[in-house]
């Protein structure tokens, strides 16, 4: 199960942000004006599990701006770096295919934070633990859809089985292309991509980085076998150096 966020019909109402905070009892994390268009949320974090991005793109002189609005969320990667590197097993994959932190296990080591290629998961100052979107694990268990999808008034956030969502998303891109929106493209919908496909994927109207998303994210643990190989060679070299300095003749 997962999310398809169709940003072409997002109206920037932030109902998803509010619904997420309310349902999950996520604490307040700052109320200030940023000057970044209507975005005063800034980005995902330990206490922000939905974030609506606002981009104002100047078009022809005199024609004003093109608005891009997009509700960002944890991608629930099929190959999830946060889960791979978590040393305590606090991060786990649920029966719904989503990635969730167990609050009673996490010891706040912070390893998941720089492992995430999207900068989603973060450590909360107040309790020292890592937090992120659970894809409303409790609501899914009760047969409900996640709070953000429920609250979205335009169905920009859609919840359901990933294969159905992908099919729907492809048709939507075809419609948009036919309507002349040739910049429309899907992001993280491909199971062959660097994260094995997102459990949350998106329809975007510009390059991913315009929305603050990495253009070609790759799960860091894909290179881990190579890292261990070089660590093993270096360790063997250090052990060998120990033997060598012992064998050298005494002066």
């Amino acid at each position, binding site marked *: 199960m997962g999310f398809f966020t169709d940003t072409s019909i997002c109206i920037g109402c932030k109902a998803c942000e509010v619904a997420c905070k309310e349902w999950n009892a996520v604490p307040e994390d700052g109320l200030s004006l940023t000057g970044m*268009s209507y975005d005063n949320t800034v980005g995902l974090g330990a206490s922000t599990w939905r974030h609506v*991005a606002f*981009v104002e*793109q*100047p078009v022809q002189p005199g024609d004003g701006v093109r608005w891009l609005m997009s509700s960002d969320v944890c991608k629930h990667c099929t190959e999830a*770096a946060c889960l*791979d*590197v*978590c*040393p*305590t*097993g606090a991060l786990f994959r649920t029966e719904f295919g989503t990635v969730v932190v167990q609050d009673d*296990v*996490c*010891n*706040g080591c*912070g390893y998941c*934070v*720089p*492992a995430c*290629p*999207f*900068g*989603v998961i*973060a*450590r*909360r100052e107040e*309790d*020292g*633990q*890592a937090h992120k979107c659970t894809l409303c694990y409790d609501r899914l268990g009760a047969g409900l859809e996640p709070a953000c999808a429920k609250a979205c008034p335009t169905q920009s956030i859609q919840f359901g089985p990933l294969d159905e969502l992908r099919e729907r998303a492809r048709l939507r891109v075809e419609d948009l292309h036919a309507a002349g929106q040739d910049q429309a493209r899907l992001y993280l919908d491909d199971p062959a991509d660097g994260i094995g496909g997102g459990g949350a994927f998106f329809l975007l109207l510009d390059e991913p*980085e*315009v929305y*603050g*998303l*990495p*253009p*070609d*994210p790759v799960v*860091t643990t894909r*290179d*881990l076998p190579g*890292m*261990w190989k*070089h*660590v093993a060679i*270096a*360790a063997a*070299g*250090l*052990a060998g*150096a*120990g*033997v060598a*300095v*012992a*064998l*050298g003749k*005494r*002066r």
Partner: protein
Amino acid sequence: MTARRRAGRPEVVPDVEFSSYYGRPVIKEPVWQAPDVAGYLFFGGLAGASSVLAASSRLSGHRELARVAKVGALGAISLSAAALVHDLGRPARFTSMLRVFKPSSPMSVGSWLLAGYGPVAGAAAVSEVTGILPAAGTAATLGAGLLGPAVATYTAALICDTAVPAWHAGYREMPYVFAGSAASAAGGLGLLATPPGAAEPARRLAVLGAGVELVAKRQLIKRLANPGPVSLSEPYETGRPGAVLRVGEALTACGLAGALLGRRSRALSALSGAALLAASALTRFGIFEAGMASARDPKYTIVPQRQPGPQPSPQDGRL
């Protein structure tokens, strides 16, 4: 509005123009604090390589040096473990680290490594100082010597197995930098704390380690240097991390020269030992800070993903 940035580079390469969201970073900067985690990298390396030195001095009959190395290893691993626990968001839950064993998590592997190595290195030092159970002490010395190289080098995988651009991209060289830096520090401690006549294995380890550290660090920066618009070698060469690494490199070179020339001088040996210890710490802090700098600037995340490979085509107008 989309933030567009131009990075000033010589005109031989096209200016980089890339989009970002108001110039904000794509990934989250590590929450690790410099004194804790960079200190952890340094002390872990010092401890692991000191145990190697202790075992090899024990075998070659350098008892005084073995004593220094064993006590040094215990002290360093204690500081290292304290730094690690202090950096946890929930220090009281540090035992959660031993709930599971996950080869996919270098921190999990490291926790188990430390859980095995710490008591063995401790036993070796305690037996050495108190003189009790000498046979067990020798066994512990050799055991710690076998685990030490892993303790000194796994931290390279720890930092490289992240989305931090400058660390991840350097994973092929980082273990050798760390091994060299650890050997150089342990040799340096031996030179500092034992008279020259009794410190020969430490001198050899210091020279070998310092040489590897210098070469591997240069190699890392050279491989990351990219003629394209954004080079991941920049965080290692510019700003404060660049300055820290350059001072470290100079100190390593001085320590190396002093170790080679100071065979008969206690003062010169001790001075070069101190220089090598300081250089090793600076290397770890510089690498740590370089990673942080690369995480903060979205260009290091976005542009390499747009332009994979070391030799970008100048015709590629997508940037």
